[in-house]
């Protein structure tokens, strides 16, 4: 332990010594506690790196961790797909819809993509209304967003049903490499779970907004925070769409 700050003569120390202290990272500030107390003090002494509210900063950090979770799934999918000696099922065929006798490749997935992008657009407008403190319009936009999100989950349920009826299972399928099923159910399932959670969150916040629960604090920032989560769900879908369905 350095005794430099306890030394009454420290004020007279040469500038060189102080510079050396800074180089080795010793605390030069007088009165700073050491040990565990010091650790706690250093991490909690009202230091602020991000000039945003804590709620927003924590949502961003949560989304960062979620980025890693989804990236691990997608990287795992890449690994089993590249490593499989059996041909991978052609997504363009597997996810095609037969409408009026013509096979339209990936049609349902394209519609799902458009629905989710639209929901992101309505969410952005809802956040904008919240900035303007227009709570009725903000809540309306959020409910609309939740409706579009639920439509997306419904279409995903339809897609799952179709594939299960065609014999796709996590351990095998009639179209090709067995890992297709496990990758598909894991990745889209986890994403669908996120969308479902987002819909619930959106509805809760929209109802609270309409009931005036945020009037006491006058702070509508929760709308922006929920919005961040919702845009992230859309962001993940962009990657799933490109890497799983189009690849």
């Amino acid at each position, binding site marked *: 332990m350095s005794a430099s700050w306890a030394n009454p003569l420290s004020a007279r120390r040469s500038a060189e010594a102080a510079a050396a202290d800074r180089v080795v990272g010793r605390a030069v500030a007088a009165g700073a506690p050491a040990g565990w107390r010091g650790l706690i003090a250093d991490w909690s002494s009202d230091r602020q*790196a*991000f*000039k*945003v*509210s804590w709620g927003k*900063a924590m949502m*961003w*950090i949560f*989304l*960062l961790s979620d*980025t*890693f979770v989804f*990236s*691990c799934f997608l*990287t*795992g999918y*890449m*690994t*089993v*797909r*590249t*490593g*499989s*000696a059996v041909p991978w099922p052609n997504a*363009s065929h597997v996810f095609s819809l037969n409408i009026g006798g013509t096979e339209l*490749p*990936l049609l349902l997935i*394209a519609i799902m*993509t*458009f629905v989710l*992008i*639209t929901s*992101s*657009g309505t*969410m*952005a*407008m809802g956040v*904008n209304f919240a*900035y*303007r403190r227009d709570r009725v319009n903000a809540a309306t936009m959020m409910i609309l967003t939740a409706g579009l999100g639920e439509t997306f989950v419904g279409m995903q349920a339809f897609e799952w049903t179709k594939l299960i009826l065609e014999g796709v299972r996590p351990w095998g399928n009639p179209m090709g490499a067995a890992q297709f099923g496990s990758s598909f159910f894991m990745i889209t399932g986890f994403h669908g779970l996120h969308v479902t959670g987002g819909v619930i969150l959106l509805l809760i916040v929209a109802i609270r907004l309409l009931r005036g629960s945020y009037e006491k604090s006058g702070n509508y*920032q929760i709308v*922006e925070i929920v*919005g*961040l989560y919702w*845009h*992230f769900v*859309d*962001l993940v879908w*962009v*990657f799933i*769409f*490109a*890497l799983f*369905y*189009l*690849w």
Partner: protein
Amino acid sequence: MSTTTPASGQQQQHQQHPIGLYLKIWALLFLLSTMSYLVDYYQFHGLLRWGLIIMLMLIKAGLIVAVFMHMAWERLALACAILLPPLCLLVLVALMAIEADQMLLTHGLFFR
């Protein structure tokens, strides 16, 4: 970044952007999604396909993060803290790509 925010002194609590901005980005995302769908529809193959898919994916992701999630107007400290760590994932992807090639090789030997 050369953004000139009107209330840079404040904590940017009240970002005011015209609704039209979101509509424009929404239209752009729609267009980009249509383009990536068409890549599959017209059955492009090889490098052209992968190039287009990845490029369109990154543009879409960038637009969502920058405009919809307002990252373009956040301070650099937050942007760096959130956007730089995912770059580590490139290492993971590179490692697993090597591993996958190895897997393919051993599968090829085993299932001969």
